[in-house]
């Protein structure tokens, strides 16, 4: 198991050091600094073995978090734990920065004592932790006996993510379907790979211990219902509306065995915001934009670039924050750009022409042309021609996912599913959206 946890600033100075196991000595702190942080070479692996000691590290801005062990630990678990630790710290004091860590070091030690025991990760749900971590005056000292046992049963219980007795005057929930659409396209317009990775994020403000059931246009469910009901209507709706989900993962509140057997998503949600599920689709993806590049080398000192972008969705919808990034060679001396829409600029420090368009409706197209002057070089190495990348945001789900229902049942309290105010929003963003040129 994890033998120790260290946090360093960018210079390699220790900000936090917590040793859990006797086999990890103080010298481990230095070994990581010397061999990894101060190493001249770029880091070639997130796992480093130095003198039979293994170091796992992740970086958040310029802070290094390292877990150390001398055993054959579960590597995936260690990384998951490091990410979780970052989440917990962010939930407590915001951005992970040197200053924030120094200001909260006592809190961090207290957290580390609680979420890792002898190197074994324990409950790390922020909701539960906040009930009894003493720092920052969140908890006033004298607790009643009931309160204490409530805390411990929550921390160790089956529903560790929610406490009892939550009350809201207005029961309300928000569902955000957030998708990032990824594309790799060849210069000829052939889709080399495309997938959507989506998340359903829920903000729930519900009283009591509500039992929820979430439904979407999952092909498997719809097909099953279509068969069972055999009515024309069901058949029709399943025809085009449903989507094939390659794989999905759920927050620990979801009953996985029920999903496995019935494919229904039922759960008691944590209070506040959390990620209900993640999913991935690869079939019938709506690609919101198409990029058509044209690069021509005119002699040895000039490049002509023309890029057309086409929007491919309902004309009534508006895409926002569109940005096209066209890489330029390292020996670029000057660039002239003409674009029909938006603003384009050559950014020498980033070796790219950045073209920004605030809004663009569906089924439109726009174009940019640029002339790139090159300095003559005797560098034999050819320019690698990195792909043209795009950023954007659209108000629909490129996977085609639709929320069909989210039912809430709370038998003990007097509110029903109809009384809950529900909001659903779809946002599609670009992930890695690249076209080779």
């Amino acid at each position, binding site marked *: 198991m994890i033998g120790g946890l260290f946090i360093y600033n960018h210079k390699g100075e220790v900000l936090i050091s917590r040793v859990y196991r006797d086999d990890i000595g103080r010298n481990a702190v230095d070994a990581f600094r010397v061999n990894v942080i101060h190493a001249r070479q770029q880091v070639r692996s997130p*796992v480093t073995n130095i003198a039979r000691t293994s170091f796992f590290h992740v970086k958040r801005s310029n802070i290094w978090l390292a877990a150390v062990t001398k055993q054959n630990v579960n*590597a995936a678990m260690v990384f998951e734990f490091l990410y979780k630790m970052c989440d917990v710290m962010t939930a407590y004091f915001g951005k992970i920065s040197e*200053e924030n860590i*120094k200001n909260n070091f006592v809190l961090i*030690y207290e957290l580390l*004592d609680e979420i890792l025991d002898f190197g074994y990760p324990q409950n*790390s749900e922020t909701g539960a932790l906040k009930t009894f971590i003493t720092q920052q005056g969140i908890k006033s000292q004298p607790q009643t006996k009931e309160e204490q046992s409530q805390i411990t049963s929550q921390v160790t219980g089956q529903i560790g993510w929610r406490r009892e007795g939550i009350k809201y005057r207005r029961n309300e929930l928000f569902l955000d379907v957030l998708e990032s659409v990824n594309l790799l396209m060849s210069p000829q317009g052939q889709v080399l790979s495309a997938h959507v990775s989506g998340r359903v994020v829920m903000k729930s403000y519900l009283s009591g211990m509500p039992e929820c059931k979430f439904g979407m246009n999952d092909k498997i469910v719809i097909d099953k219902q279509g068969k069972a009901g055999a009515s024309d209507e069901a058949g029709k709706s399943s025809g085009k509306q449903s989507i094939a989900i390659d*794989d999905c993962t759920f927050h620990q509140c979801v009953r996985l065995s029920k999903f496995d057997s019935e494919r229904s998503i039922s759960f008691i949600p944590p209070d506040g915001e959390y990620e209900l599920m993640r999913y991935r689709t690869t079939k019938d993806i709506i690609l919101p934009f198409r990029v058509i590049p044209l690069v021509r080398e005119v002699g040895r000192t000039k490049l002509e670039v023309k890029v057309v972008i086409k929007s491919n969705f309902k004309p009534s919808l508006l895409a926002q924050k569109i940005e096209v990034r066209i890489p330029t060679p390292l020996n670029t001396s000057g660039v002239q750009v003409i674009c029909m829409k938006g603003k384009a600029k050559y950014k020498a420090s980033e070796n790219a022409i950045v073209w920004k368009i605030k809004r663009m409706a569906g089924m439109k197209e726009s174009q940019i042309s640029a002339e790139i002057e090159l300095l003559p070089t005797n560098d034999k190495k050819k320019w690698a021609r990195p792909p043209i990348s795009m950023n954007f945001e659209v108000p629909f789900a490129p996977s085609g996912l639709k929320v069909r229902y989210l039912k809430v049942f709370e038998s003990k309290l007097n509110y029903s599913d109809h009384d809950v105010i529900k909001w659903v929003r779809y946002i599609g963003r670009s992930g890695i959206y690249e076209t080779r040129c």
Partner: protein
Amino acid sequence: ETNKLYCTSVKCCIFELKAELNSDKKEKKKEAVKKVIASMTVGKDVSALFPDVVNCMQTDNLELKKLVYLYLMNYAKSQPDMAIMAVNTFVKDCEDPNPLIRALAVRTMGCIRVDKITEYLCEPLRKCLKDEDPYVRKTAAVCVAKLHDINAQLVEDQGFLDTLKDLISDSNPMVVANAVAALSEISESHPNCNLLDLNPQSINKLLTALNECTEWGQIFILDCLANYTPRDDRESQSICERVTPRLSHANSAVVLSAVKVLMKFMEMLPKDLDYYGTLLKKLAPPLVTLLSAEPELQYVALRNINLIVQKRPEILKHEMKVFFVKYNDPIYVKLEKLDIMIRLASQANIAQVLAELKEYATEVDVDFVRKAVRAIGRCAIKVEQSAERCVSTLLDLIQTKVNYVVQEAIVVIKDIFRKYPNKYESVIATLCENLDSLDEPEARAAMIWIVGEYAERIDNADELLESFLEGFHDESTQVSETHTHTHLQHVLHKHTQNTPDSDNPDLRDRGYIYWRLLSTDPVAAKEVVLAEKPLISEETDLIEPTLLEELICHIGSLASVYHKPPNAFVEGSRGVQHKRLPARTASGESAESPDAGQSVGGVSDAPPAVIPSQGDLLGDLLNLDLAPPSASVPVVPASMQMGVDLLGGGLDSLVGLHRPSGSQYIAVGLAGGTGGMPAGLGGTPAMGGGLGDLFDLGGGVGMATGSYVPPKAVWLPAMKAKGLEISGTFARRGGGIHMDLSLTNNAMSIMTDFAIQFNRNSFGLAPAGPLQVLTPLAQNQTIDVSLPLNTNGPIMKMEPLNNLQVAVKNNIDVFYFSCQYPISLLFVEDGKMDRQVFLATWKDIPSENETQYQIKDFHLNSDAASTKLQGSNVFTVAKRTVDAQDLLYQSIKLTNGIWALAELRIQSITPNYMLALKCRAPEVSQYICQCYELLLRN
């Protein structure tokens, strides 16, 4: 203000802190303790404040208490006497009405590694293990593991292990999870006692807790489940069914641990089961999803997928696209993806893969680009249909003139040439244009090889080679070796003579032997140097099968990331247990697997595969018209005739390649010969050994021990043969096969006119010359004759396979008898397989062809066994030591070109050897197994 806490100057001195710690004001005290902790973090020694800090311990303020505890854990060990001061508070806290405080006390106490404190810990711990509050119990469970780490004996004596076992049935899932984690850890250092006592009932409890506990708890439970071996395929399936829902968990570690359990238990399911197919299909999506995690986790996932793809390629064969490299992937992710792409490349997806690889070859990172170029070469070798496209892609890359790309491309083109000879030589001209830019040894060696191999087609091959020759003295050994070889090839083509002059004795000797060979008999030389090259294996970097199995049992863990067994990087007793996949059990309708230890079955049904391959190297060498050594003398004087000198030097230089310095003139290989060999016999197989060894750079060292010769047995009793008694044996000497006969005349008259003939037999054994009984055999006289044999005779499958029917004639009559030869007689000297080829072949031979054999009550260490076996041409290709076990991987080649691959497992604890044998002609396995026993026991 807090930045001040981190101040490292000496000024923030101990005195100030001491004063503050003893302040009456609570707030000031707390601030002071915080400062102490901060100093501790940056590495300042604040142990001097120990009594003052401990004084702050007795407080109702939980916050302050936690800080003091933190300090205690750090310094108690260095101040054991003073740490005792804290004991009272701990014991008191363990009785506190607040469960959070009880848990805190027991948690901290376990972290204080001071013997005296440990004693006091036992009673509170016992109470806490049975506490009414689950939070206290789950903390106490982990504390048992802590205590065990400090004093294992104490834990056992106090009976904590039993209490811990009881907690597996606890009503609270988190308590169960922590108890499982603690027990798993403790049992790692007690590999022999079955602490966890996994049985269907306890497994059921674990599976129930699995649905209810935290994500971390699920990992502990799954990792523990993976150590269980179900009793049969039905139990295995029912566990799999309950584990599969975990594949949808958001936590990647839960997913990977579930994959581990499934991969392991799947081994037990019959392949024709519907559920088996369903399970395979269910595994792919979650593995792909892991690739959308953060990069560090992607890396862990990719290293594991690499193993899974090797074990079960069918799972991800349609998922090539997800392994395409993204521009922004960190380099470690890119390199791993590339590895998997090569493994998944097949005819179906090769076009896409090649297009991708070509893109990668223009990237920035040198390592990545090189690997991409190499990958193109691998594709050509793996998928024959794509070879042409690969070659043209490589040519395009050579045109880029990027130095390292060109060099890498030439290295892989050489391999393509070897795999597909005389197919792509049209590109040689382009390659030759780039001679000047080659500055890496591997690339230069490759280029020289190409020039030599295709010398006939290159007009100025002379010049090109000369240009390489200029730098001969500066070259690395790799280049020079190829060069010498190539030069000779070239000479053979052009019939000119030129011998390189080098300071490296090995190399020089090799040059000389080639040269002498050349001047003695150019035809023979041509056969030797231009002989068939060893096969290029399709797969690279394959993990040894047993290691792969072990690593599959460690999916998700560090071992799977390093691709090394845990004992390679873990110290001490932990992780020593050697894990293996369960065997497929035969239950109900499925009876496809042979039980371990049982010998091969179903011999007679298979078509006879015992057919000698023509043009086999040994066969060629038999035709060499060279004189064999008349007598084997350890030191061959330089004045001896050419043939002998040639051999002596040859063996020496080759053996010498693996020694620091070639001890020049000692002929090692021929020591096995006896004086009984007739001289001047044309075409004696004796030469086979020496020359065969030219190609066996690793072997030859153990030759001196000689091969095993069974004692002579009576084959033909006198009463059946009118007074002639024949006893005999078979021996392999100096690469030749001999039948050593003793003829005894028990009759009343003299015997003359002896002749011998063999019936057709399985391996085509036949006398290589007449039976040389020169003098008549008088009454009561015994004469020993050695009859050289070859394997060029007619073939017929015999039962048993090694049966030989012989007819002997003399002046009285013709007599028939049959005898059996040990199959080791047919093990040839060039039977050492290349490691890579071995791995690929092992993987390639279906497991139905595997035979298990046990050699009982045998005490000999692996080195001795290896030497012994090598004497009879059983070559150890690789050796691996896993804990108390040595694994020898061995290869054997029969005279007819059949290969047998063996894994010999030698345990130091039990006196039994386990032999697993794989052979494409399974009929011979049984006989080889017998030979193993025979060879080892003698």
